[in-house]
């Protein structure tokens, strides 16, 4: 029998000595420069964490390179953040500046800490996913080539800003609570290959997969039909039944959502809300998308109060002003007509005219 169910490496064997010795004893932290966290323990120990950007999709050579750096300055330890940044953990203060110099010399971007744009959480895209409407890695690269000064702290922002990219509404990165979310969407009713349905799909589970009840059996063809007026192109049926195809390179595209957050600080967690229903899918640089994201960041950056997240700023100034200031047209697509729609309609006289 092969060895199974032995679990991941034990974190206790992965953490550096300074972390082991100060585990649970950290007293406070400060940010001495962009991209560096300095944690002070009640034992008096000081740990500097240097955060650098990673493309997330990396080669083994890249991993060996960061290992070499960690061997030189960090006693052979490093970690990653939940947003795919690399963190070099420096316990020897003498080594901090030389590490920063080497990283900068090698072209790494140091940043993503505190009031900054951190790395972008994103999905697989065309690299590896069967249902990708667009390519997440390319979108992230294009967007962050424009916005990296907000990562490195070269340009300040009022608060942290979390961007996420998902190549379809499955939103594998669960980007529905990001300050800015970029999500690939379909806009046409899926095509059904009737000849294949009877051979490769289970009709009851295909019908049950539709959240709006748009799918009916088509007994004559031993297939199904999709009611176009009910379908909102989620693609769930296509995930269940390979005879259904929702991909359409000509009309698929990208939507942009704003104002989500998950921290409970000040205000409660929020969903991201629709800002732009559709932009064309234009690789390799997605100029319409990068321009739209840049506009959102700039408008927020110039107007928000210190410490105010995107969603908090929008709630303070009101969505009506948000659309006016950003120049984004408000359309019928912005008014919800799905499961929890009525909870989003305004029932007060507190609005700006």
């Amino acid at each position, binding site marked *: 029998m092969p060895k199974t169910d032995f679990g991941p490496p034990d*974190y206790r064997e*992965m953490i550096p000595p300074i972390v082991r010795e100060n585990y*649970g004893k950290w007293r406070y932290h400060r940010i001495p420069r962009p991209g560096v966290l300095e944690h002070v323990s009640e034992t008096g120990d000081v740990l500097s964490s240097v955060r650098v950007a990673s493309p997330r999709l990396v080669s083994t050579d890249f991993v060996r390179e960061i290992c070499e750096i960690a061997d030189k300055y960090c006693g052979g330890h*490093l970690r990653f953040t939940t947003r795919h940044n690399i963190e070099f953990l420096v316990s020897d203060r003498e080594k901090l500046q030389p590490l920063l110099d080497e990283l900068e010399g090698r072209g790494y971007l140091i940043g993503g800490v505190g009031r900054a744009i951190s790395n972008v959480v994103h999905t697989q*895209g065309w690299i*590896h996913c069967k249902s990708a409407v667009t390519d997440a890695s*390319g979108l992230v690269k294009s967007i962050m080539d424009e916005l990296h000064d907000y990562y490195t702290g070269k340009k300040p922002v009022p608060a942290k800003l979390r961007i996420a990219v998902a190549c379809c509404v499955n939103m594998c990165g*669960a980007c529905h609570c990001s300050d800015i979310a970029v999500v690939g969407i379909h806009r046409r009713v899926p095509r059904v290959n009737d000849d294949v349905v009877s051979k490769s799909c289970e009709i009851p589970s295909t019908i049950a997969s539709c959240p709006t009840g748009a799918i009916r059996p088509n007994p004559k063809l031993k297939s199904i039909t999709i009611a176009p007026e009910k379908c909102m192109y989620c693609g769930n049926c296509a995930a269940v039944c390979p005879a259904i195809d929702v991909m359409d390179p000509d009309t698929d595209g990208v939507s942009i959502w704003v104002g989500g957050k998950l921290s*409970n600080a000040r205000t409660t967690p929020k969903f991201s809300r629709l800002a732009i229903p559709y932009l064309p899918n234009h690789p390799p640089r997605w100029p319409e998308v990068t321009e739209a994201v840049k506009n959102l960041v700039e408008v927020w950056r110039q107007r928000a109060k210190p410490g105010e997240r995107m969603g908090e700023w929008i709630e303070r100034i009101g969505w009506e002003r948000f659309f006016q200031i950003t120049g984004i047209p408000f359309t019928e697509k912005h008014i919800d007509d799905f499961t929890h729609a009525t909870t989003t309609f305004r029932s007060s006289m507190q609005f700006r005219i």
Partner: protein
Amino acid sequence: MDDRETPLLDELEEGDWPSFVAELKRAAEKSAMSADLLRQIERSYADNTGHWKRGGIVGVRGYGGGVVGRYSAMPEEFPGVKEFHTLRVNEPAGFYYTTEKLRELCDVWDKYGSGLLNLHGSTGDIILLGTTTENLQPCFDALGEIGFDLGGSGSAMRTLSCCVGQSRCEHACIDTMDVTHDLTMNFQMEIHRPAFPYKFKIKVSGCPNDCAAASARSDLAIIGVWRDAIEIDQQGVAEYVDEGFDLFNRVIRRCPTWALDWDAEEKRLKLTSEDCVHCMHCINEMPKALRVGQERGAAVLIGGKAPVVKGAMIGWVLVPFMRLEPPYQELKDLIVQVTEFWAEHGKNRERLAELIDRLGMPAFLEGIGVEPCPQMVDAPRSNPYLFWREEEVKHA
């Protein structure tokens, strides 16, 4: 390989942000598989669509998941990615590594796969991208020899992940990394052998800042919290004020429940602790002077998920406070109760939140044996359509 083969992707080597195309090319230098991947992606950039087939179940002996089967839809043109399966490898809690361990991982992956990987996937796994059906078992065996096991996929408990917790954060109310590791070891069967209606995600954050995004991304989120008063170092507060920190505008007026006030004469920050909702704002702003309280534990939120099928959810409070010390038995029992109820009543591809939405929260609470409490709701019901059980209704 010849650079001119990929003119579209080449554009993404320009610019200051680290380039995934540069990484693809580095891998392509050594691996024919990665070279064909690069060509297929270039084709996707030209055609505006992906070129992967749907479906395809592959695996390793003894496991029902942990491997995602992937086949090129254009195998004649890109034979190197005819089979391009992914291994989801369970990360060590907190994403800490020794360079020795990472190098061992790279050696295995260069031998058996494309040499490309994600550090990390959205759920938390190390994603080893691209190997053949033939290489899956030997690759898994080699990973086992260096101490890496697979994570979850399909309708299973998925790989857990957590924030950095007490290993490097003064806010952590619980030992997130230990909770994550302990639960991972406890639920190996559920992670490796899909037997649920759909995926089930668990994530652990050390405080209400929720840096692991647990409440949005997990069916069951464990989030650290305290229930006594915030610890105030008055001298520390005075130092902030003396250094010109705008205490009123940055902290006091931004407290969501007006729980803070400043006594200018005595130079004391006053806290009305029963008004505090543990939002973390004041602590985030003044980490040198304010700390989370001493009576620490965790809240459990359920139902967080992405949109498909019936809409996105942010998790709902199920347990407002639970002590969390090894062996975490109360938490483990709760997870079993929740997943068993869901496995029994959930339909195929119905996430926990959707089941609760369909059956009603009261029925769910009764089913798992959890008493209702006011922390579970933003506000009580505003409609009069109450359900009564026969035994509750007595004639006057």
